[in-house]
């Protein structure tokens, strides 16, 4: 970045101006409104269910003394997982200076911020006493992995917001000067948010340095958030969780689903906002290669996780595994493993599979599979305690999430999509100044060959 020429956003030539106005946020069309409407319905449903839960307690869920963690926790792990992508694209690709990453950085950061924010929210939904949330700060014990999680997640959220916000400054300043395009209110807000960005050489230097520092900082943090989240399970004695493999197993799975998340967003945004010129097939091809690499790493950790315990078949652990392989969880287990991991590897190894549409479909499989994978990590374990479950009401021996749990979960997913949607509605989803800079200095198209 530092070798690039200084960019003056106040004096854009026609071509640059056209590009800038092309990338600026636009109002919702019919489809956009419909999409927001659907999201609002799910969010409303989730709120109704949460109201019920607040008034009656967690008894509205199907969690009971044995299955004491349910889909709220698996959903939490899912959110933490998908948020890792922010560090993948915005940090790792930036530090190794991958030139084609520019149009993807903001997409990745937007997903990361909304996902990690909702991870924090959904964990409060799981609490029996959300009114005592402040106890975590007032009485927090550093010995508890939950406190580690609180620390790393809030830090990750902060740095992710900064990584999203700082590179927005030049764009905000640019937009605040387009009075023909935006309402007065918007112009004012953009102006305020741009925090006096003038676009001096100094400011660019500070911006570049800050984002670089943040990009370095966020990598260990990203590893930490998901490692610590895996420790919520691995620090217990429970079968299926008591594993030293859990940290890298979770992290690799998280990178995989995060990568799939960016691919899905890339595809939808490209189709919706006609960004074919900027998000090219080459981007999909590269991200597809990334996804296949990450899936292979994840496959490796899966083999580790299941083969080693499966080889020994220790008592309760063996029963737990048999329940996954051939018992009541088997259909879900094999669907997830095949469609969420093996199939993507098979498809994406081929160039044709990495074309935008098949890649998008595969990425959706990975995302849905990843959600259920986390269900399979949380639920079956708790139904296999050391001391057998006996003389319990029949309902307590199983776990089938209630409509309230599904609604709250769906509501949280819709909520995070809503945050992404609104960010895209009001802020440019591709970094305008970086795109101009790149086109100005070295067009992406010419770089693409050497990048691949």
């Amino acid at each position: 970045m530092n070798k690039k020429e200084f960019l003056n956003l106040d004096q854009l030539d026609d071509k640059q101006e056209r590009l800038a106005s092309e990338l600026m946020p636009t109002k919702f069309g019919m489809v956009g409104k419909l999409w927001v409407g659907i999201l609002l319905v799910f969010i409303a449903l989730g709120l109704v269910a949460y109201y019920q839960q607040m008034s009656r307690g967690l008894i509205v869920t199907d969690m009971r003394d044995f299955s004491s963690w349910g889909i709220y926790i698996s959903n939490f792990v899912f959110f933490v997982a998908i948020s890792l992508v922010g560090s993948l694209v915005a940090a790792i690709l930036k530090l190794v200076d991958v030139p084609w990453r520019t149009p993807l950085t903001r997409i990745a950061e937007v997903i990361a911020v909304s996902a990690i924010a909702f991870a924090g929210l959904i964990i409060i939904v799981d609490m029996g006493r959300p009114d005592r949330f402040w106890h975590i700060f007032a009485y927090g014990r550093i010995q508890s992995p939950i406190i580690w999680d609180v620390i790393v997640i809030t830090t990750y959220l902060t740095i992710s917001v900064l990584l999203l916000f700082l590179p927005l400054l030049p764009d905000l300043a640019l937009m605040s000067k387009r009075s023909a395009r935006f309402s007065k209110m918007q112009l004012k807000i953009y102006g305020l948010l741009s925090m006096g960005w003038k676009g001096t050489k100094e400011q660019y230097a500070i911006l570049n340095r800050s984002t670089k520092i943040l990009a370095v900082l966020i990598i260990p943090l990203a590893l930490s958030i998901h490692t610590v989240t895996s420790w919520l399970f691995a620090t217990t004695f429970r079968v299926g969780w008591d594993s030293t493999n859990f940290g890298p197993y979770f992290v690799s799975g998280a990178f995989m689903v995060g990568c799939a998340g960016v691919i899905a967003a890339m595809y939808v945004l490209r189709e919706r906002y006609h960004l074919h010129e900027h998000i090219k097939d080459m981007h999909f091809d590269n991200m597809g290669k990334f996804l296949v690499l990450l899936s292979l790493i994840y496959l490796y950790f899966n083999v580790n996780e299941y083969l080693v315990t499966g080889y020994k078949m220790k008592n309760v652990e063996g029963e737990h595994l048999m329940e996954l392989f051939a018992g009541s969880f088997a259909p879900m287990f094999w669907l997830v493993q095949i469609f969420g991991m093996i199939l993507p590897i098979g498809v994406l190894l081929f160039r044709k599979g990495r074309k935008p549409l098949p890649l998008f479909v595969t990425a959706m499989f990975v995302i849905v599979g990843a959600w259920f994978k986390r269900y399979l990590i949380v639920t079956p374990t708790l139904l296999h305690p050391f001391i057998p479950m006996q003389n319990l009401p029949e309902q307590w021996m199983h776990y089938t999430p209630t409509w309230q749990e599904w609604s709250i979960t769906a509501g949280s997913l819709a909520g995070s999509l809503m945050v992404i949607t609104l960010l895209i509605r009001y802020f440019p989803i591709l970094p305008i100044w970086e795109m101009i800079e790149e086109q100005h200095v070295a067009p992406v198209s010419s770089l693409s060959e050497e990048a691949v």
Partner: protein
Amino acid sequence: MDNELNGHEAHESQDTHEASNRRNFLRLGLSSGLGIGLGAAATMGLMAEGDSKGSAGSKVKLMSPDGKIVEVDSDQIVDIPRSVELVVREGVPNRKFVMVIDLSRCKNARKCKNACSKMHYLPPERSYIKVEKMQDAEKTAPYWMPTPCFHCDNPPCVKVCPVDATFKTSDGIVSIDNTRCIGCRFCMVACPYSARIFNWGTELYALNDEQKEAIKPHESCSPHLRGTVEKCDFCPNHTRHDKLPDCVKACPNGVFYFGDELDDTVSNGDETLRLSKLLKDKSAYRYLEDLGTKPRVYYLPPVNRLFPFVDPNEHPEKEHHE
């Protein structure tokens, strides 16, 4: 412990008012199996001024830690002041509570469960103690195993609590502050013995006003606050006053021995035994010792059983073989 004598053997002091008070006190100790530490001035060579009680000249028979009956002058006996005043995060002073469960005596009468539910104002189907059918191997005989909270000395539940809502007190008990608990249930998944239960909703409990009145957190039982965790507390309303927990008293077969490790004494209500000798003679063990949690609950193996094994459940349940 050389300088202490344990007063769980009846003594024969003459009938002065004070002596009879002391006898009641000691009898309490007998009934609970909790030895009352008495500083015997004769063996200590010390005599606390003005602390002596009883009329001079009357003799008291006491049992020493090695089981000998000794006779001392009653005015040489000094009560060790013991406070049963409630300090929430501290335990009963000079106590290390311990439980021994004799599996050879359990026939799944479930009286312990019912007593537990009643004492803690739990709905009948809930209790802090469970009785499971266990079978160690395919061809070994099944047996019944009551499981309360093990009040581990290295408690995994306490380790993971993010807000210090569950903690270990000096008397060995793992306790819960229900006004502190945030309901994250990490302790429940951390406990390998599934000892903890959760108040999923108040509708599970339906307490009447009288019961609500009777509940005093840390003194009697958990206040059953919605969205918080509860579990076996070794009945503080009894143990604080040198009495046996309700499950121990309720068991018709004397399965449970409860007592104090410092006094090396446990009682099931009928007989009072030396803890160390009992553990040694009956080859006691702790459940899942390998996990290193150091439970305060010991099991005596189900050998020479009092009852044949009868499973009341017609429908065989899915089980885990340990």
